């Protein structure tokens, strides 16, 4: 398998992030208050426990885990002021 360059990895991470945002409303219905993992514009895993999800990703994807988008899907609409 061809190894991706750092630039390709960053581009894919951005594309996966945008894909997650585009599907957020659907995820809110399907996976409320869960963490979801997106890779290659595909939802690859989800769960309520972030630790358990990260363990599964590490086991299955190894070093690639670092390039997987992991986001929390909040059931409620939250206005974030940081």
């Amino acid at each position, binding site marked *: 398998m061809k190894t991706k360059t*750092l*630039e390709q*990895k*960053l*581009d894919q*991470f*951005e594309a996966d*992030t*945008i894909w997650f*945002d585009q599907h*957020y409303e659907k995820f809110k219905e399907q996976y409320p*208050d869960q*963490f979801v993992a997106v890779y290659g514009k595909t939802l690859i895993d989800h769960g309520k*426990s*972030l*630790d358990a999800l*990260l363990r599964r990703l590490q086991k299955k994807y190894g070093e690639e*885990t*670092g*390039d997987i*988008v*992991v986001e*929390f899907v*909040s059931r409620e609409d*939250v*206005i*974030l*002021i*940081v």
Partner: protein
Amino acid sequence: MRIRGYYRQLDAPYMRAKIVCKQFGIEKTVNFLVDLGAAATIIGPRDAKRLRIPYNQLKLVEGGVSGVGGRAETCLMPETQLVFRIETGNFEASFHHLLVLEPVAKTLSKDERLIPSLLGRDFLNQMALLTDKRQNLVLITDEFLTV
């Protein structure tokens, strides 16, 4: 040199970067909210878990760090690089210490789950920042822009 970002939910500008800390074998990609209100760049609790940051090996910031949500325990991750994508390849920004928010408990609270990592003024003030939601434009550049 130009680093391009993008707008995400709630019309917030983001940049993605690879975080590299050789001392702890960390090399992972993170989305940063571009935040001129933040004095320093900081890793949020959810990303900190993803990065598997060894808190017990990091120095605590005395007195913590204050934000809108209150005061939080914060650690210093030594000798860390953020690698950004640019037109001709990548650009590396080095941090002698990068701030990391430490989760209060083993399981993240609901608020902690939502807190993003922030790209703060310690980085942004070295460059020019251009944002225009109408054009979906988020740009950081070392060029001197004139208006």
